[in-house]
């Protein structure tokens, strides 16, 4: 009798294990399919960047017969690419650094101090995130033009900071709120002024949140192209993304060159992502969950 029961339990276990394996395979299949779909455009871009124009026209999806770096040569040694890269770097670094500075101050104050209008500021900051960019562009272009600020890095940097502020402020605010009051109280007792507290306590404690924001902000600024298209029209000032869209003329189209340009534009961000993945995910998700 016992033997029979044990045998049936064994076979049940085997069945369950088999089922698990089965569903496991199915799960992996789904995931692998999704992975292929997710990465295919990247594959498309990379693979076609090492073909010649003729090779591309005859074979758009497959691997090239040999790897040709002509397209990359055209992109990198054409006078424009290094310039575009520099411009993007300048704009990205400046706006991200300043944005973090301003938003950490704001987040600090909103989370830890009481003052009139605090509620209003917090609420408006959040709601403003939904205004579409296209609406902002023309009035700002006209305004900046009146002050002769157009076609200067300042215009784009100021706008980038402005656009990134709401999210940054909100994130830091929700982070700072979690800093225990006791730490601040003891600092106060020690006679620290608010700036000292800001500099020596809040900032170091929020290192991980700041790191997250750095990654999020850099991603956004690097990929942005509408604002820099409008405000940085002079050839010397063009940013990378804008430059890449210009590789496609109305009259001429050289697909491998365009692809090579795209790869060069994506690569830095991809590298950043690989090395700071943790923060990427945390940042984009943190605001959502707390919200």
């Amino acid at each position: 009798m016992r033997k029979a029961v044990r045998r049936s339990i064994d076979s049940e276990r085997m069945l369950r294990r088999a089922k698990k394996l089965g569903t496991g395979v199915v799960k992996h299949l789904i995931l692998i399919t999704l992975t292929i779909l997710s990465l295919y455009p990247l594959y498309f871009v990379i693979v076609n960047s090492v073909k010649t124009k003729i090779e591309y026209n005859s074979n758009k999806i497959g691997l090239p017969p040999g790897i040709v770096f002509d397209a990359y040569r055209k992109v990198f040694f054409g006078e424009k690419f290094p310039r575009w890269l520099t411009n993007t770097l300048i704009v990205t670094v400046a706006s991200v650094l300043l944005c973090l500075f301003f938003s950490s101050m704001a987040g600090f104050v909103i989370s830890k101090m009481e003052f009139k209008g605090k509620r209003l500021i917090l609420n408006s900051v959040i709601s403003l995130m939904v205004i579409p960019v296209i609406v902002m562009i023309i009035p700002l272009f006209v305004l900046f033009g009146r002050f002769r600020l157009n076609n200067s890095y300042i215009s784009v940097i100021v706008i980038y900071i402005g656009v990134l502020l709401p999210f940054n402020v909100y994130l830091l605010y929700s982070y700072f709120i979690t800093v225990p009051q006791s730490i601040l109280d003891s600092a106060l007792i020690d006679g620290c002024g608010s700036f000292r507290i800001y500099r020596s306590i809040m900032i170091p404690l929020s290192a991980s949140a700041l790191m997250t924001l750095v990654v999020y902000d850099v991603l956004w600024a690097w990929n942005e192209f509408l604002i820099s298209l409008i405000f940085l029209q002079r050839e010397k000032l063009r940013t990378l993304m804008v430059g890449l869209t210009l590789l496609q003329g109305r009259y001429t189209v050289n697909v491998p060159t365009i692809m090579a340009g795209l790869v060069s534009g994506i690569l830095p961000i991809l590298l950043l992502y690989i090395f700071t993945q943790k923060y990427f995910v945390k940042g984009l998700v943190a605001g959502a969950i707390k919200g």
Partner: protein
Amino acid sequence: MKRTIMVSLIVICMICSIGPLFSTPQGETEKVDIRIWMWGEVVAPGMNDWYNESAEIYEKAHPNVTVEPTEIPMDDLQQSWMAAVAAGDPPDVILMGRQEGIDASQAGDILPIDDFWSKAEVDTILPAAQRELGWEGHVWMVPEYMEAWGMVYNKEIFADVGIKSPPKNWDELIEMSERIKKTGKVPLGIGWQDGYMSPWLFNTIAIQCLDDAADLHAAVLGEQRFVDPKHGDWWKIIEVMRDNGYINKDAASIGLGEGLDLFYTGNIAFGFVVQPVAAAYVAQMGDGTVGAMKTPLPPITGKVAGSIPITPMPLALANGPHPDVAADILKLLLTKERVKALYDKSGAMQASTLFEPGSAKSEVDRQYAQWFLESTTFTYNWHYTPQIDADSYGIGQLLIVGEIDAKEAARQMDESAAKWRRENPDAVEVYRKTALDWMQHSK
């Protein structure tokens, strides 16, 4: 307390450092900085070099002036211009179309070139071009280069199929297409996804049905209609070509540029071109393969049929701080030496009496030069409005992809004009005035 003071000081310092950026620079009266917003490299490679070279020449002769040519993509030109004007900071010279120029002159944003040039200097511009560049008794704009509209054909495919000479009218072309198709080649190669093929076909086929620009003006104003035979019947040609499979299958999903590139594959028998593009074909494929031809005659022919339209790409003089200096630079661009340099460097011809057809580098260029000097016609897409132009892109695209037929295409053009009239009553008056004016000055 100390900390607070420190913070306040930092903030004040920041504001102070940004402050000066908000003030307009003063006292810099001696240095003049001229900005030219132009376009053309993608049609005629080498044009950027020509501009930079010209800038250097001028700067050497006038050390206090810096000339800054900037290439702006064609699609961004108009929006960049409008934004710059609204901001009170326009470039000194800008490439813009005729109707845009008329609008800008109404608003006082540009100045006529004949206020700054002598009559002799203005008359170096070909008479046909002067007509296109002028209104209200003035010549307003200056040609950057000139596009002559026509077609090319592949001599090798002709030889294979046994065609002796280019078709004179579209019936012949359609008949030839059937024979070409049988050999596995594609008769006509175009790209219509971005819609730009529509104005191209207006300038090559549609225009030949008209007697005069007055016909087009009338259609825009509603006095004639785009559904009338001489305005709307020509769409049928495209419909027939499409239905018989004489056009490349992916025409609806590739852009103009990719369509033009098809000719290079050697599988295309006929292609639409403007002269600089034809020059590029010859540079790559040789005179032995590329042949120049006028666009065949449509079934309905008007007085301007058989004449190649030439479009002088207009440079407008902005109402900026130094229009005199800018006008002077434009004068340099149209000297004989610069005109020759333009052709040598970029293959683009200039609508100038100073251009020497004898300097043509290829058989195709020689043909086109001869044709453009004989031109008696106008440029179709300079004579309707930007809204109709923008709408025409979609109409052409729908036609080529098979969504609509020729009759519907004509009807939608008519719709577009009617809508423009309905939404812009004051613009209609301006258009009527300048259209009438053009007619008076063209006699």
